């Protein structure tokens, strides 16, 4: 089976078998999801036995559409986005067989939520400057981790974390880093809510004090953590843009609805801005659609590197317009109580929340400035800026 190329027909036949054996209407959600994983229909491009069928990645959309049409439950990808989008592909690429078997199934099922312990107070865009130390314990072979992470989304709900730590401070900053899978319930892991501009605490500070990580939870070779982390970061940035949105889907939808339903709010100046943004949102939708079609045709284009930039800017401009359109109502905010949400959800919230939360879109997962650098260098081939931190031992860098 592994040798044959999986086609859409093969996959659809499997979907039908799954639905016949486990009718969504009568099967408990968790049972259905387990059966789906075991049938290789969780992420079809993963290997057999790990939730996949070694099929082309683009065919996942076919499977998802068929299951959705049949009313099958999904695994709530928004709740477990970091696990799905970042931890899983990295574990798949660098994990031992044992690690893949242990972690991928509960991850996909949402039984174990993941978070990303990368950023630190002194290492954001310049992530490779990180200072969290991991030192090998001579006796047990465990690693002992000390340091502080910050802006960690979902740390309060996470069972596991992907973690990068410095294992050799005498080497230049990209070299002495090692990648770990960290148990968030281990002694010495302390999660403190970090309140953000929306009033909520969606992310956290994480203090690591003498946290013991067995060597079996190391991902990739000692000192090779930066290469592993790059896999994570690349996946983080392509996660966006692949999904299909309808015309006038996304952030423009509530604004357009308000415009139609409440003529009293209309002004000429707002009309011009609304039309400009409506057109831009439609063009962004088409650009995403073109990217999706390129991927499906096996000819990936570079557009993916740009979609996050586009959506960040659009979300910010559209949500800003929405607050103004609402006039007096735009002066109000639904609720400033500190809450610790499980997911980030732009829908079903008020315009003020959308306006504030969208500010994070150009910071999280790499700032727009950093992404513009990446587009300029990797897509357009423009030269890098001169830099002097590449060969200096980490311990001698200015921080």
């Amino acid at each position, binding site marked *: 089976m592994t040798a044959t190329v999986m086609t859409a027909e093969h996959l659809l036949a499997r979907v039908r078998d799954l639905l016949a054996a486990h009718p969504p209407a009568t099967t408990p959600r968790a049972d259905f999801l387990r059966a789906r994983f075991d049938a290789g229909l969780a992420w079809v491009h993963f290997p057999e036995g790990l939730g996949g069928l070694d099929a082309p990645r683009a065919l996942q959309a076919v499977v998802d559409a068929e299951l959705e049409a049949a009313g099958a439950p999904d695994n709530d990808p928004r709740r477990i986005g970091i696990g799905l989008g970042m931890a899983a592909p990295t574990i798949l690429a660098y994990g031992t067989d044992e690690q893949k078997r242990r972690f991928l199934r509960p991850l996909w099922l949402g039984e174990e939520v993941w978070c990303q312990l990368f950023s630190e107070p002194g290492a954001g865009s310049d992530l490779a400057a990180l200072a969290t130390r991991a030192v090998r314990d001579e006796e047990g072979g465990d690693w002992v981790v000390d340091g502080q992470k910050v802006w960690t989304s979902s740390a309060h709900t996470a069972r596991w974390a992907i973690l990068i730590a410095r294992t050799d401070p005498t080497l230049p900053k990209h070299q002495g880093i090692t990648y770990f899978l960290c148990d968030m319930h281990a002694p010495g892991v302390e999660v403190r809510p970090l309140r953000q501009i929306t009033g909520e605490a969606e992310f956290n500070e994480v203090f690591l004090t003498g946290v013991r990580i067995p060597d079996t939870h190391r991902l990739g070779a000692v000192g090779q953590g930066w290469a592993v982390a790059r896999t994570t970061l690349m996946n983080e940035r392509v996660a966006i843009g692949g999904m299909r949105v309808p015309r006038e889907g996304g952030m423009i939808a509530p604004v357009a609805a308000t415009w139609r339903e409440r003529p009293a709010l209309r002004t000429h100046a707002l009309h011009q801005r609304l039309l400009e943004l409506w057109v831009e949102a439609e063009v962004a939708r088409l650009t995403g659609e073109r990217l999706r079609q390129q991927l499906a045709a096996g000819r990936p284009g570079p557009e993916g590197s740009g979609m996050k930039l586009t959506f960040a800017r659009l979300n910010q401009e559209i949500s800003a317009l929405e607050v103004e359109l609402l006039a007096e109502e735009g002066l109000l905010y639904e609720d400033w109580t500190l809450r610790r949400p499980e997911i980030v959800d732009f829908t079903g919230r008020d315009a003020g929340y959308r306006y504030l939360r969208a500010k994070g879109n150009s910071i999280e997962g790499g700032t727009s400035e950093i992404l*513009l650098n990446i587009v*300029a260098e990797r897509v357009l081939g423009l030269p890098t800026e001169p830099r002097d931190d590449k060969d200096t031992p980490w311990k001698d860098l200015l921080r």
Partner: protein
Amino acid sequence: MTASTVDLLYSETEEELRSAVRSLLADRCDPASVLARAETGDPYDPALSRTLGADIGAAGLLVPEKLGGAGAGHREAAVVLEELGRAVAPVPYLTGSVLAVEILLGCDTESPDVAALLREIAGGRRTCVPAVPLTLAPGAPLPRPVHDVGGGRLTGTLTSVADAAAADVLLVLADTGLHVVPAASATLTAAVPLDLTRPLATVTLDAAPGTRLADAATARAALAGALIGAAGLLASEQLGIAEWCLTETVTHLRARHQFNRPVGSFQALKHRLARLWLDVASARAAARAAADALATGAADAPLTVAVAQAHCSGVAVRAAEECVQLHGGIGMTWEHPAHLYLKRAKADSLALGTAGHHRGLVADFAELPAP
């Protein structure tokens, strides 16, 4: 308001057509010769037009096979326009092979006169240009028709007619319907155009003999529909312009050194170019969507065209302006081709409706009414 499924990629046939057009233009239409011709006041290269139209078969892309055309469609014509934009080629393609053909296809193609004219256009044997202002926009009021003084003799004046000087025959909207008029029987007064590569003229008809092709109602409907098609394809020309400007600027900034490093390594410029690249990538999606919607006759084609025009006009102008600015002093010179692109891009942003006009159309189609 659901969007139909669009195909936003290029097929293999389209890529083959592209390389044929591109290599022809590389051989016969380099920027230096475009400029040299433009300076003579007669920018057209009839031999180039013939090769493009007849040998490569581009003239008949929109004409059905039974009328002597290639039976291709808007997607293919869009690819030709991308390449023509990339070369700021001074050929009457948008006017002659797109707008004129669309108008004629909106008339009764069973009529021998219409069919014969389409055949001649498709075969590259005749250049037929509509005598309408280049700024005429879909959805805008049509110009006042010229007067039929009797017996199909037409009298009137039409301004800002693009490519009239390259035409063998003109399509004229008269009060009695659509007429075809030999260019030789009209008086052309060349204007000094902002865009040197798409000349404009005032066309004066003084009891000029016309052959009637369609009645007034048919003519007006055909013209209204044709303007949508042409506006949709203009987006592809604008994409080609933007692409050339981006590519040239990147090449220049990699080679040009100041402060002991390539200028392109300065972040301020890298970010500007990265943004421009994003614009071009999105313009491609918008232009392709318009071409595909026109090709398939999608119900939402008028909206998709309006979206493409509202977006691509600005991208082409921005790209050309950035190209001039980031070339520094060289960008302001007559020798460097950047100005040809800036002039074309700016003129194109007025052609067939401004971005603002098209946003107004979006407001209608998307039901987002003005206050």
